[in-house]
């Protein structure tokens, strides 16, 4: 891809933002297990959390390429901030944008874009992960309300969210066709959160269970129609995957940058590490993989922008980017030697952060299933 001028300008701006606002506090943020409100507000203000939302709903009204640029640059410096950004930019915005009524968009989407509200997306359950069709959370229409009961697990932002988009079963026995999506206000009676999970990586994002006990959700808060829940979730994840792929690309690039820098500084056997052919070849290998991911990802963003179906492509992006992020982070840490194993160097955090990329928003195996499914149909 050859960037247009507007994309180059955006890239420059986000890069500066990431260097000044995101990077300096990444280690501290991880220790605190949270992202500061100040940073959240800035992300919203610059519309990094709403790149693809049209201007009329307070978003940036930009294209998917811009979204990928933002995700890549931010995640390069802090993967947790990347997760926070993509949760708002696609997991929460995209279902509202694509399936919400005008009223719902005004009430919920505009508050996400302005940063007044934080959203969450609740699909996964203790018994339903890769097999998202095994939902047990249920919603029963009683008078003017749907009464929701159930438990969602691993929900990004749940502890700090103002509302969540939740998938629940409205008609048992109909499988995925019996599910619906709801906008659930987090301060409704009966909504609570589990403990903040003690995670290996992206420790500054807050992840917990979301528990609903006889929660009365007004009828008008159903998103789309009854029975559309699974469709909405899958459609959302299609776009979400571009975001996570871009995040993984940023993580890989961040690791790469650290490796290059360190290899030039560190001297052994009278030379810098970068003078050893093995190290050079390692770096060449890493760089090539990263550039291949970048090419596929930006092409997919353009396809999406052009209105083409990207189910297979977004799965390939997410799969490849996640695996490459892990491989590159591994090699980059290796280049750091013992110092790489110590928390004083950012590569240690990057290495841990990389691990989630191949798990959430569909594991690498699920992506392979999607790819093979398209290929063999």
């Amino acid at each position, binding site marked *: 891809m050859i960037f247009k001028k507007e994309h180059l300008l955006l890239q420059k701006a986000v890069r500066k933002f990431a260097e000044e606002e995101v990077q300096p506090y990444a280690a501290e943020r991880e220790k605190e297990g949270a992202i500061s409100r100040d940073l959240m507000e800035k992300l919203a203000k610059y519309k990094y959390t709403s790149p693809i939302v049209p201007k009329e709903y307070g978003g940036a009204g930009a294209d998917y390429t811009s979204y990928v640029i933002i995700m890549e640059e931010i995640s390069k410096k802090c993967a947790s901030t990347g997760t926070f950004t993509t949760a708002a930019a696609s997991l929460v915005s995209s279902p509202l944008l694509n399936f919400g009524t005008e009223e719902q968009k005004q009430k919920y989407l505009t508050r996400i874009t302005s940063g007044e509200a934080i959203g969450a997306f609740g699909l996964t359950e*203790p*018994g339903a992960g890769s097999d998202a069709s095994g939902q*047990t959370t*249920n919603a029963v229409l009683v008078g003017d309300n749907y009464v929701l*009961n159930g*438990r969602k697990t691993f929900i990004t932002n749940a502890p700090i969210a103002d509302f969540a988009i939740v998938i629940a079963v409205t008609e*048992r026995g109909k499988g995925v066709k019996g599910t619906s999506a709801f906008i659930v206000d987090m301060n409704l009676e009966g909504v609570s959160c*589990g*403990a903040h999970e003690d995670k290996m990586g992206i420790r500054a994002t807050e992840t917990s*269970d979301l*528990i609903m*006990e006889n929660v009365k959700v007004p009828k008008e808060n159903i998103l789309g129609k009854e029975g559309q829940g699974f469709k909405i979730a899958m459609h959302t994840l299609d776009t979400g995957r571009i975001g996570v792929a871009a995040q993984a690309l940023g993580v890989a690039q961040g690791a790469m940058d650290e490796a290059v820098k360190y290899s030039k500084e560190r001297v052994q056997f009278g030379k810098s590490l970068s003078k050893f052919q093995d190290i050079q070849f390692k770096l060449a290998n890493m760089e090539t993989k990263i550039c291949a991911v970048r090419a596929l990802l930006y092409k997919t963003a353009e396809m999406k922008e052009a209105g083409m179906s990207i189910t297979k492509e977004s799965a390939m992006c997410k799969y490849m980017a996640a695996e490459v992020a892990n491989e590159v982070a591994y090699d980059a840490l290796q280049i750091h030697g013992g110092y790489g194993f110590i928390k004083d160097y950012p590569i240690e955090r990057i290495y841990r952060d990389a691990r989630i990329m191949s798990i959430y928003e569909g594991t690498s195996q699920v992506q392979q299933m999607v790819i093979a499914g398209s290929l063999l149909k």
Partner: protein
Amino acid sequence: MGKQDINKYKNIWVFAEQRHGKLMPVVVELVGEGRKLAKERNVELNAVLLGENIEEMTKELIAYGVQNVYTADHELLKNYTTDGYTKIISEAIHEYKPEIMLIGATHIGRDLAPRIASRVDTGLTADCTKLEIDPEDGKIKQTRPAFGGNIMATIVCPENRPQMSTVRPGVMDKADVDNSRKGNIVPLNFSIKKEDIRTEVLEIVKSDKEIVSLIDANFIISGGLGLQSPDGFDLLKQLAEKLDGVIGSSRAAVDKGWIDHSHQVGQTGVTVKPNIYFACGISGAIQHLAGMNQSDIIIAINKDPNAPIFSVADYGIVGDLFEVVPQIISQLDSVRG
């Protein structure tokens, strides 16, 4: 083992374990089982009771259906010691030659039984869950779980006497009480000196039962988020006390801070395999099931008929646990009289 003349051995004995002057509940189970076996063999059921000031307990044993209570009443026998008890019971065995000797598989029983068996040169089967008389030769077939319950081994002791078993508490039926029963008290001829006992009991500390031993528990009463608040565990404790059980919990209740992590059952908690597992207000997430689905019997109480817990439950009650559990408690009270 030397050759014995096994025909000289007769009658069934149970070890009447007492602590602080009270018979252990397992003794009543041993007497219940022992009476059945004695009837089949057409022999007497006797008990051996050691302690200090034990008269009340002898009466109790007779009321449960023991014919002869062999007693040793001495201040040195007030508390259990391996040396003291082994010496006296081994001597009694030599003198009276019981054919079968049953001991409860408590911590004391598991310590005592092997010492006696070794001293009187006979076989011992530990932790039996089933005892039967072989109709062919009158020997006792002792069945016990081995390899973590994956194998049930049936063991006989053909040539040596007495045939000794420790019996798992909570498996055998309890003996009924009948105060009109008659029996004899037979004081043992014994001598015991302080030097015979190498251990000295300085103090017996009763723990507040706070050390949770979910793994050893026969009954686990577990609660989840359905308890609504930490107070919910008080209700479960009442049930646990009736059953001499232990309190378990789901992770959700631990995360809420309602109970300590040491109670958590599941993938990241303890894996348990009790006789009965009560799941009260637990949805049955796979991470919870992983820790308890091997329980012998699972009883689920949940108000949601679609809760996944019912897929592993042997008995399921759809209802509000705050109504169901008190009813179980009162039913238990009426059954036990």
